């Protein structure tokens, strides 16, 4: 715990937002910082949750402890609806209260004696959980990195995908695609190289596909679209950005039967033990909501909210482009990754906040490779997005 630098990134951003609002009580702060969903959850989904809740007051409808791995119907629905023709079994799916918790449960599973590689920049929870579990050395101020973590630079120059020829071997490789914060969705070819790399090195890929619903082109939505991935990868995902479940809390992890430790012991057996011992299942109400999301009406409804955010991302992307800035992401993800060459990202963050009352996230919060960049999230009411665009144009043109 002592090794951790400062607080976790997003509460820091929240604190800055509060301070700013206190300083400028009449300013209309627009939050494009923390990637928090803003649009109401479709009725077909919430009705299902409300009905489930009400049924808990009836003799026939009351349910106590659920299976720690998740409700069977939901596991099946995830397998059939979201993994379709990929041979993912319902028994390989572990329903959870979200990716942030799953990441830590996976770290518990792996223990302190494994090495990890992360993209740079990356979602901070992979690194922070690694530090907490004891996989890393100390933080080095000069480099902005923890010792013993392999940081894989992801830049425009390498098409936001690690150059695997220069990446050291580690036990575990965290990859998020579509990526938070850069917004880049790895191509099939890139993921094939990754799977090959993991196979050759005996590594386990932990593939974070929380933003898969945002993929617009034919980039893979699941690592398991890649042949051979079942023997090298775990996939985590979430209903948060897919269905607005950031507060409802629901996600899942896929651990294929074929994934084995070096002694041949199936990883799924240990993950099951972790889930049964350190967890007690996702809320049955949230799971009822998840099932509703995966009905045909539900899918259509949540997809239209996803499309709404995608349109937001386009508006923001266009805004920055029109201002002559290099913008990445935004096409396959609800984040725009904007380059401010030569400037420190906290300085840009502060200037944007002071001058336009817009909260963003400074790129260095995601790792040293995020410096000179700002992450702008596309979650927000349309009017806020349009207003933000207007303010940015005023400031930066």
């Amino acid at each position: 715990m002592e090794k951790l630098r400062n607080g976790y990134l997003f509460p820091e951003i929240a604190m800055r937002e509060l301070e700013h609002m206190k300083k400028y009580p009449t300013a209309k702060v627009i939050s494009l910082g923390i990637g928090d969903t803003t649009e109401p959850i479709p009725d077909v989904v919430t009705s299902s949750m409300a009905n489930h809740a009400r049924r808990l007051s009836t003799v026939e409808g009351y349910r106590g402890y659920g299976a720690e791995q998740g409700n069977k119907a939901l596991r099946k629905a995830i397998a059939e609806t979201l993994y379709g023709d990929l041979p993912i079994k319902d028994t390989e799916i572990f329903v959870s209260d979200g990716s942030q918790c799953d990441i830590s449960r996976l770290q518990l599973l792996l223990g302190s004696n494994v090495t990890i590689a992360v993209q740079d920049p990356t979602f901070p929870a992979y690194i922070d959980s690694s530090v907490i579990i004891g996989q890393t050395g100390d933080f080095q101020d000069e480099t902005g990195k923890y010792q013993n973590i392999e940081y894989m630079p992801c830049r425009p120059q390498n098409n936001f995908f690690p150059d695997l020829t220069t990446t050291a071997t580690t036990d575990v490789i965290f990859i998020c695609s579509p990526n938070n914060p850069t917004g880049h969705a790895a191509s099939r070819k890139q993921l094939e190289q990754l799977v090959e790399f993991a196979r050759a090195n005996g590594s386990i890929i932990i593939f974070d596909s929380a933003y898969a619903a945002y993929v617009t082109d034919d980039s893979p939505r699941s690592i398991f679209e890649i042949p051979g991935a079942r023997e090298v990868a775990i996939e985590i995902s979430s209903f948060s950005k897919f269905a607005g479940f950031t507060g409802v809390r629901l996600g899942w992890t896929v651990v294929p039967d074929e994934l084995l430790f070096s002694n041949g012991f199936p990883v799924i057996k240990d993950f099951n033990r972790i889930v049964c011992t350190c967890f007690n299942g996702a809320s049955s109400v949230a799971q009822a909501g998840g099932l509703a999301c995966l009905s045909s009406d539900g899918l259509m409804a949540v997809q239209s909210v996803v499309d709404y955010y995608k349109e937001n991302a386009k508006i923001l992307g266009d805004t920055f482009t029109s201002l002559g800035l290099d913008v990445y992401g935004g096409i396959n993800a609800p984040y725009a990754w904007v380059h401010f060459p030569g400037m420190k990202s906290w300085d840009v963050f502060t200037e944007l906040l002071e001058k336009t009352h817009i909260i963003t996230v400074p790129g260095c919060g995601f790792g040293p490779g995020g410096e000179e960049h700002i992450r702008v999230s596309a979650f927000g009411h349309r009017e806020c997005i349009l207003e933000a665009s207007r303010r940015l144009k005023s400031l930066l043109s």
Partner: protein
Amino acid sequence: MYSLMSSSPSISSSSSSFLGQTHFDSRNPNARLPTKDSWICKCVATPPTETTAHTTKVSRNANMAKLQAGYLFPEIARRRSAHMLKYPDGQVISLGIGDTTEPIPEVITFGMAKKAHALSTLEGYSGYGAEQGEKQLRAAIASTYYGDLSLEESDIFVSDGAKSDISRLQVMFGSNVTMAVQDPSYPAYVDSSVILGQTGQFQKDVEKYRKIEYMKCNPENGFFPDLSTVSRTDIIFFCSPNNPTGNAATREQLTRLVQFAKDNGSILVYDSAYAMYISDDSPRSIFEIPGAKEVAIEVSSFSKYAGFTGVRLGWTVVPKELLYSDGFPVAKDFNRIVCTTFNGASNISQAGGLACLSPEGLEAMHKVVGFYQENTNIIMETFTSLGFSVYGGKNAPYVWVHFPGQSSWDVFSEILEKTHVVTTPGSGFGPAGDGFIRVSAFGHRGNVLEACKRFKQLYK
């Protein structure tokens, strides 16, 4: 082949949704009831099944390998499923896993339904909540349960339940701490300790993990450890009212415990999940004991109060006064853990929690608790009338029945075979639990009465 029970590569769901239904997971038609002690299966290292199967080069976490078998309660669920397969007309009654059975009072579910509907509106939609929990709920917990104990909203961390909190606390403590547990105790304390790497190997002869200090609790010592024989450890897990023995520690005992922790510079993790079941004046919170704020963390849960076993809601209290040896406040680190390894309890569950703590909700919860307390009385009376030494029950929904000289798994199996009632063998909670059976009092009244009838027939 590595040999866990039910050894197909796919894991059976350990679901209590099998309650009274014949539709169940039939993945293991060949599951056999094991012979004595063979449920403690070993996970044996094995080469790949085919020469072409890829293994990674990632070593299995040695701590996971230390665990002896599956977690206790999925094991009980498996036994129950197997039994139901064997006797499809058997009318199995489950007094094993402590799973609540009675519907949640409407005032509470209404609160949840209302929140669910609100999430579909512009004004009512909320995204990420504070990881520590909704302010209103934290404040309600503080005032309801800790009002006169000077604990505040900011000392309360809302969670998805005590089991998750126990592991988050262990993650916070890290692998370099030593811990003490009651023997017998709720298995999650020991198992999470093993997983975090705080322990040595399991010693089969004594059925204990090295490096854990087991504090025996039996009828002879009134189910309170003889502290004069307990070695110093960094962390002490203590559950009162106790699962599985049902014993509630007295004020005097807890005062000694707090002093012991103070003298040794230990941190007490106090599990008060069953506090509402107390019927006498035993303390309901460790913080009723002067000085406890400087030595204790308290973990609690809505599971057994509000039937929230599936809804998932609990809380942990970390007082500001609790400090590490270097003066660093434990609450700061716990906050960091909660912000990094967790993302808050479900907002719908929290809305339910808030409804629980309304005057109407509190009254409704007391009624349901009272119902289970009546079940407990019925079960206690039954075993007492049959001449057994019976413990617990008065302050907890568990009855701890003594079967001197017998293996608890044997008694468990016999009861299951002959009465179709599922209980929990005491040795599942630790070596000092052997010779005892835990009978849980959660059940429909009809089932509890029927189970007692069958016990009377078996043991008359």
